[in-house]
């Protein structure tokens, strides 16, 4: 029963993607504009790293290639996350404007529908670029390459994506309980961007916050520490999928409870 349900959701996923492609092919310019502006954003972050390392050989005890490596990993996870979880205006569109009512009359799981309605495949381009950046840094650092590394990378990226997804689902689900927490999502977005640098450079308070409270450091430095020989920390690296499952579990739980509470926007 459960499996057939997953198969059903997956089938829906194909339909939504096909529909997305149809819409986007009508506005081809938009697609490229979005890809280019995503890449420009990453480029400025990379430029920052390059500029800084013109003035200092190391950041804490992290070399330029190591910092770039972490950033490449961050881009991969961030790209996959933005492609599938696009809940920025959930409260506005689904709760205040009442589209949630429409979603709830349909048989598929409400969260799956909301996420599928907002898929954003262009973000995957920056994942590919991130992979390229990480690969370049990998070669530059002369890191060993084992047969299991690609598989570990996939598991790590999945874990990181689950962390982001879990946190943002939780935030989106707050809209079920209170009205318009518009300020919180940009706030998160700001905090999240600090995971892209090695957290070891921050003071203890911020490090604790980014590791155990809002675990954004698992979308960047910790999983990368599996591959970086000079900073290898296998335990923290393998915590990534664990924290990912916990975050996703919390997100799903808050969402399901929220949906039960949901009474509609009235009128």
């Amino acid at each position: 029963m459960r499996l057939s349900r997953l198969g059903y959701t997956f089938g829906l996923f194909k339909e939504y993607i096909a529909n997305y492609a149809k819409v986007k092919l009508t506005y081809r310019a938009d697609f490229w504009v979005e890809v280019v502006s995503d890449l420009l954003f990453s480029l400025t972050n990379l430029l920052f790293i390059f500029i800084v390392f013109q003035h200092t050989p190391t950041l804490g005890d992290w070399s330029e290639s190591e910092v770039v490596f972490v950033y490449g990993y961050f881009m991969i996870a961030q790209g996959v996350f933005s492609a599938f979880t696009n809940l920025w205006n959930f409260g506005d569109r689904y709760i205040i404007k009442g589209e949630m009512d429409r979603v709830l009359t349909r048989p598929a799981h409400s969260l799956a529908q909301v996420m599928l309605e907002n898929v954003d495949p262009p973000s995957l381009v920056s994942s590919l670029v991130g992979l390229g950046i990480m690969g370049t840094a990998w070669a530059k650092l002369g890191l060993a390459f084992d047969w299991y590394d690609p598989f570990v990378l996939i598991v790590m990226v999945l874990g990181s994506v689950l962390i982001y997804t879990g946190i943002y689902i939780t935030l989106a689900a707050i809209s079920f309980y209170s009205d318009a927490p518009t300020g919180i999502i940009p706030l998160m977005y700001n905090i999240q961007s600090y995971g892209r640098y090695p957290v070891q450079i921050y003071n203890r308070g911020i490090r604790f916050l980014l590791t155990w409270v809002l675990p954004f450091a698992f979308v960047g430095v910790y999983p990368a520490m599996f591959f970086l020989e000079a900073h290898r920390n296998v335990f923290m690296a393998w915590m990534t999928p664990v924290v990912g499952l916990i975050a996703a579990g919390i997100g799903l739980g808050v969402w399901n409870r929220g949906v039960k509470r949901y009474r509609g926007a009235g009128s």
Partner: protein
Amino acid sequence: MNAAYFEFVRIRFLTMLAYRVNYYSGIIVYAINIGAYYFLWKAIYGDAGSLAGFTVEQMTTYVAVSWMARAFYFNNLDREISNEIRDGSVAVQMTRPINYLMVKMMQGFGEGVFRLLLFMVPGMILATLLFHVTLPSDPVRWIVFFVMIWFSFLINTQLNILTGLFAFFVENNEGLMRMKRVLVDLLSGVIVPIAFFPAWGRAVMDWLPFQAITYLPSSVFTGRTSGTETWHALLIQVVWFAVLVVPIVLMWRSARRRLFVQGG
């Protein structure tokens, strides 16, 4: 007539005051940004006494004052203008006996004044207490700084208006607005002072308006720029302000001629 424009400043100020949640979360966002960049720069400096002519203290002051100035000059006029163009309400605005772009600028100013008083001043006090921020002792420097961030506001707003007006000419200027935002943050010197750029980068920056938004006023505030150089920096801002008026007027004129509102 001027009283009408002033009214827009006042109304926007009061509107901002009404959305208190955004205000509190805004304070936290700025505190986080300043804090994170503070630690980042501390790590970058390591044991080095000065980099690119900035001492650690100057850098701390630079980071704090740049983010605070950003609170003042930042606004979303590009998005507001392009939304009003796309939903057609700009047509109604055009029939009014006031200049649409001036109204927008005044609204942006209301927002800026709100953040200056309720954001920048308490934020700067807090930053001075938490980090090693050195405030200038010379009153002239303070006055010049405030004149300069007024021009920062004008130039940044002009760029926003230009970006917003593109909605008249293209179907979707979403990407353009995002690019502008990223470019302004990087090239204006909020994230990294222009002095850190490689020589060719600085040469390019000299010919772009972005440095006038953050780098020049913050350099004056930290005392890196002093004496006649200060007046030179101010002059660059004035020139950019004057230069940017031209494309805005041209665009606004041709936009009015080609405006057609979809639907209705």
